[in-house]
């Protein structure tokens, strides 16, 4: 039930290099590397290059120490990372390519398989790199909230119940009637429904908490979630790859 305290707002405030702020940034980057990876893949990098570019960008960000000077506009972590990723692609690519075979220590154990599997089912042709970044970001937020919810439920010894009730998170009714679920879980229908309601409420909280970690101002979680929803619902359009504004 513990919330991670890593927060973008804290990182922005942390000024000293090599401090807890740097470690926190490392954690956040570790959590949100997939959007950057698919961003580079969409721009045309192959699997290895995209991983190397991501690693290179993250190394650079962590080495900078004071983000406040470097970050464009002290905005949300999402827009910050997206802008950095784009700049890195434009400016540092050649240099990074020249240097990358040097055998830098890998900062993060990136496993592109997950990201590749995700990419395989996306309508890539109708989305530009930025849109794909946003989409993957929204999915990552959801994944992390679900994962935390699952951890909570496992910790509370409700593994079976979670497996049965998970579908209510999508807004779907459970596959079987409530009364049958109650019998399976050896409890009452009211209790099962309470559990479902609590699960949904907890999921909402976890979503908001996850999003708040990436915001400079924690009050704007609702607006950020709406933007993520819009990113998920986006089907086509947007600028073509290459004509970055």
């Amino acid at each position, binding site marked *: 039930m513990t919330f991670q305290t890593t927060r973008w707002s804290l990182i922005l405030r942390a000024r000293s290099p090599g401090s807890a702020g740097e470690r926190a940034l490392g*954690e956040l980057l*570790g*959590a949100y590397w997939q959007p950057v990876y698919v961003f580079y893949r969409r721009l045309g990098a192959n699997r290895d290059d995209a991983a190397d570019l991501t690693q290179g960008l993250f190394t650079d960000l962590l080495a900078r120490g004071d983000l406040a000077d470097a970050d464009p506009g002290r905005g949300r972590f999402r827009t910050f990372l997206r802008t950095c990723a784009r700049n890195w692609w434009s400016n540092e690519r050649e240099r990074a390519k020249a240097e990358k075979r040097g055998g830098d220590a890998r900062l993060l154990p990136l*496993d592109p398989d*997950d990201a590749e599997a*995700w990419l395989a089912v996306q309508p890539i042709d109708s989305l530009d790199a930025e849109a794909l970044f946003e989409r993957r970001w*929204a*999915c990552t937020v*959801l*994944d*992390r909230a*679900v*994962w*935390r919810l*699952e951890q909570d439920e496992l910790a509370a010894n409700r593994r079976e119940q979670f497996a049965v009730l998970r579908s*209510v*998170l*999508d*807004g779907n*009714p459970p596959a*079987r*009637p*409530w*009364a*049958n679920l*109650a019998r399976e879980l050896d*409890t*009452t*229908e*009211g*209790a099962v*429904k*309470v*559990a*479902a*309601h*609590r699960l*949904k*409420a907890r*999921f*909402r*909280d976890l*979503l908001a908490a996850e999003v708040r970690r990436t915001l400079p101002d924690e009050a704007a979680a*609702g607006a950020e*979630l*709406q933007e*993520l*929803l819009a990113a*998920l*619902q986006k089907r086509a359009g947007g600028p073509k790859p290459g004509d970055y504004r």
Partner: protein
Amino acid sequence: MNPNAPRPPDPAAMLGHALADAEVAQPWPAPTIAELAAAFPELTLHDRVGQGGMAAVYHATQQRLGRAVALKVMRPDLAKQPQFTERFVREAKALATLSHPHVLAIHDFGERAGFCYLVTEYVDGANLRELMQLGRLSPDEVLRIVPQICAGVHFAHQHGVVHRDIKPENVLVDRHGQVKLADFGLAKLAGAPGPALTRSSVVMGTPHYMAPEQWHGSAGVDHRADIYSLGVVLYELLTGRLPVGTYAPASAQPGVPAGVDPIVQRSLQQEPDLRYQSVRDVQKDLERQRGTTPPPIPEAARATAGPHASAVKLLVAGALAPVIGLPVLTIFQYHEHELGMHRFSQRIQNQNHEQIAEQITRVIANGKPWPGSAPQAVQPLPQYELTDKLDLLVCFVGGAILVTVVMLLGAAAWRRTRHAGASRIQQMLAGVLFSLPVVGSASVGLCGIVDKLRTEWLFGVLGVFLIVANGAFLRWLWRLTARRLPGAAGPLGRGTRATLWLAVVATLGLAAIVVFGPRQPAPPIIARLPIAAQKLVGLTRLQLLERLGPPHAITATKERMTWSYRSLDGNVRADAVQLVLGTVVSIENPNLILVPAPQPESGGSIGQTRDELVAARGNVRRSQGDQHGGEIEFVDGTIAKLSPDGIVLQLGK
């Protein structure tokens, strides 16, 4: 770090759903956690779990005891008004006197730093309203939950506390399904002198759940108001609707025992004296009903709900249809009788004619007279009977389909309106209304196709039009009803839709059989046989010869010829047929059957023209008279007498 959870099938749906469920904007700014943390240092505040019109509730932990509690904080601007503070303190007092498993326990209350607050036990669960949003509770579960509420309310009543605001929002259910009654916000201490605010005609409570006497703000509100509210909650839990106006009985819902209806009715009496007088009685009656709820539908059957269940229903209805379809079959028969008589009589007449013609042919060949009296050309129509197998099939299958569709549509309308909470009469009306257009269109339309399309295509088209028009009418009616009964809104069920399509396809197939199926061939023999004299008028001489053969004899005047023929009974009719200018103008008796003369001596030449005769016999020895009339003598001595216009009248040696 990377969460390895399986990805949701549709992240957009998941996020959208989570956001849709998020709390709506609150009417007043609740105190922030930080503000409260300063005022309540002994509590660790986690988050706000709810906010109503008057108070906000926070989840907190009492540090000293390490127990989870709920902190309820009154709306600060209201807390400044004296009567609200008074009410709040009274709530606390009312709650503090109660310790019962089904009543939310109070730990502490008071006023601190401008906050009126209440510390209660924390229920890790949801309220009934939230549970209802996940779908209606099963009747069994309702009958498990409501008696628990009753127990809590009864306990409060025993201690002189009337809740006065029982509603789903105030009934909490924890993770074990245990019920806790919360929010005695409007409770009145019955023993204490009524505070000013209750007599100031201030209406308190939530309108739908309030007893009528509460509406009027009367001072005489007692524990029986809670019984009314309980009745409303009970009804809403069972049906998903509020008992407003003339509400449908709760037992109209599947699985709700009929015994619940009187309990609801008695709780909802307008007059407190007519209601239950004690919550304990409500509880007892409900518990008695609990054992009688039918067992829930087994999973296997439930899993097949939808198209499969519809198919089963269709089969059952199909099996029943022939039985119930008999009256419909009669209607079909009637139509056949009325509209199809012409076709049938024609066919049977033709059959008769062929038989007669055969006999006549035989008689003629034998050269014998017709035995007995002459047959009538027009037979009396035979009695109608269903002998045609195809027509029988069409009638029967058509009737079966019709009845099936009517039953299914009626049932669908019944189900829909019942879910919408309509009364039984409304349900019946809907069932009849929905099935009537089908009965009308199918019987008229199908009969139109069956009976008329072969002969009169216009009627067939009319039949098709009727069916289509009535389909459109049905659709309109369906939508109209859906608008009038909001609960019935929405498209047709999949099963009903499939049934309708099936009916349409079957009807079209049936029509195709009728139109393109085997037909009775037209009898060609009738036209060629010498049947009725009446058919001869208007024929030319040649046609007459062709139809009846040479006459027995011909007598001629200047402008008129009289041909004599034998009738079927063997008599020679001297003036059977009269010709003027080579055309039959009149006949002796229209009902006579005329037959050709036997071939013999005349050689079939009578009635021929002079040229034809000469061409046939040749070798003219002598010709007398003008070009046409007179006599011709042939070489063999045969003498032919000719009429003035050159027709052979007699032939002899």
